[in-house]
């Protein structure tokens, strides 16, 4: 949809104008990898045959995409609270394109962050598998994942009445996503009940797939399943966002 593209370019233009956001995101990525990765590496030398830096990078990348999705929701909330969204609403464009434009810009920022993190990770000793098709596949899945969480964040942003309320609601699903996933520990070491929870979390599928595609670790989940789960998640969450967005407009 053309309007999605237009809104995406607008968000990117703002992103480039806003040096603080740009530098902040970049520094965040670097710090995550540096502090977290290095700290954990001191404790654990390797996980399932791969060095811990390679193990943890996909998790950190997924989590920073989550942070990006929260930020993307904030942009919509801000535009809603300020009334800027009315310019879109009065224009002859589908409502969905407003949300997709936001999600697309979130995914773009997530990719930008991921690239930076990979670079720092490599400098810190992570070993990337040498298969460019795998890297591209990993980035595509990351983009789909980012769109999925953008959908959730946008849905919450569509009905929040204040910035504080938004963050309160977002916090509810942000933390569990980190710990109830395979970001920090491999799936095999988890007790069965926690495995169930972890397998509900879409982040698990992304992280497993990225490990396999970019770092050459053997996948614990079939790749096709991961791709399917992530795509289904993205579609469902955008539908969720659209529903809440339309409901907020009817009031």
């Amino acid at each position, binding site marked *: 949809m053309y*309007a999605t593209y237009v809104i995406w370019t607008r968000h990117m233009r703002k992103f480039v*104008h806003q040096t603080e956001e740009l530098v902040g995101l970049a520094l965040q990525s670097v710090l995550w990898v540096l502090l977290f990765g290095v700290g954990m590496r001191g404790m654990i030398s390797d996980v399932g045959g791969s060095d811990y830096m390679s193990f943890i990078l996909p998790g950190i990348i997924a989590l920073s995409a989550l942070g990006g999705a929260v930020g993307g929701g904030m942009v919509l909330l801000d535009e809603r609270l300020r009334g800027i969204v009315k*310019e879109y609403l*009065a224009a002859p464009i589908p409502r969905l394109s407003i949300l997709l434009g936001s999600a697309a810009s979130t995914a773009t920022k997530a990719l930008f962050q991921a690239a930076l993190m990979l670079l720092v990770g490599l400098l810190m000793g992570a070993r990337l598998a040498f298969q460019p098709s795998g890297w591209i596949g990993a980035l595509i899945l990351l983009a789909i994942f980012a769109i999925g969480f953008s959908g959730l964040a946008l849905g919450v942003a569509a009905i929040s009445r204040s910035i504080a309320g938004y963050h309160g609601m977002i916090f509810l699903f942000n933390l569990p996503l980190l710990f109830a996933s395979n970001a920090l520990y491999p799936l095999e070491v988890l007790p069965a009940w926690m495995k169930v929870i972890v397998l509900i979390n879409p982040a698990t599928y992304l992280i497993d797939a990225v490990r396999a595609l970019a770092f050459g670790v053997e996948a614990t989940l079939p790749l096709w399943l991961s791709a399917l789960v992530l795509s289904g998640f993205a579609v469902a969450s955008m539908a969720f966002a659209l529903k809440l967005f339309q409901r907020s407009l009817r009031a």
Partner: protein
Amino acid sequence: MNEPAIETIDLVKRYGTLTALDHVNLQAPAGRIYALLGPNGAGKTTLLSILTTLLPPTAGSARILGFDVSRDAAEVRRRIGVTFQEMVLDPLLTGRETLDFHGRLYRLPAAMRRQRIAELVELAQLTDAIDRPVKSYSGGMKRRLELARGLMTDPQVLVLDEPTQGLDPQNRVNIWNYVRDLNRQRGMTILLTTHAMDEAEALADLVGIIDHGRLIVSGQPSELIAAMGSDVIRVRGQGNFDHVAAIAATLEGVSRVETDPADGLALIYADNGSRRLPAILNTISNNGFTIEDVTLARPSLGDVFLHYTGTALRD
């Protein structure tokens, strides 16, 4: 034969138990400036939100250029330009980016966008500022940029919600001239809301008075005013307004008395104000009314407003 550019039929909007619009029947002819005049909270913005397809009506219908705002929302959106009550601008974008982005949303080709921006920047007197971020603009500049944005798509109908709210007098007059020029030079139909009497008087070919969600009366300002009588004596003071009104109404030459005790105001309509003035003032001050201020004038739109709504228009 001549279909109105904007028409609502028994338009109703309810928020829960609150009725924001109560069977509004509005007709704004093509090529004219129509001002919706009413206090804050009267339902003006709700009405505009429905006309600009941002809100669905609860009941009734509204059409713009023959297109129903619910069924043919996309057709309506393509043909109208809008400015909202609050400043709806992205502070991070430059003026040029703001206009260009808007044109792209409406799929205007690049060459046309460039040409329109060049024209509008001049019209809106933003030549020096157009490449600066909007956050550096003054209130008046922002408003002019918003108007320019509303015009990017060369709309047939322009809808302006409180176009001069929060602007200083000089900027208000600037915007008025701008709106008038648009109407005269391009024949654009313009619907605006205002709670400022002078704005409606300065701009409107037609005025609709709206209060508590009802469109109480509409017509040409001169006709509405003429219907009020020849002269009005405005008396401010303290006392028993009902008593004073009853007595003043019996005096020779007095056609009607209206009071707004909350504002300490009595309006006495007379056939010949200057001749009747001494007798009227004499009578009411002899009846226990303390007069603080008296003006004698031709009736104004403000008097029309008081006549139809029972209260003076306040901000």
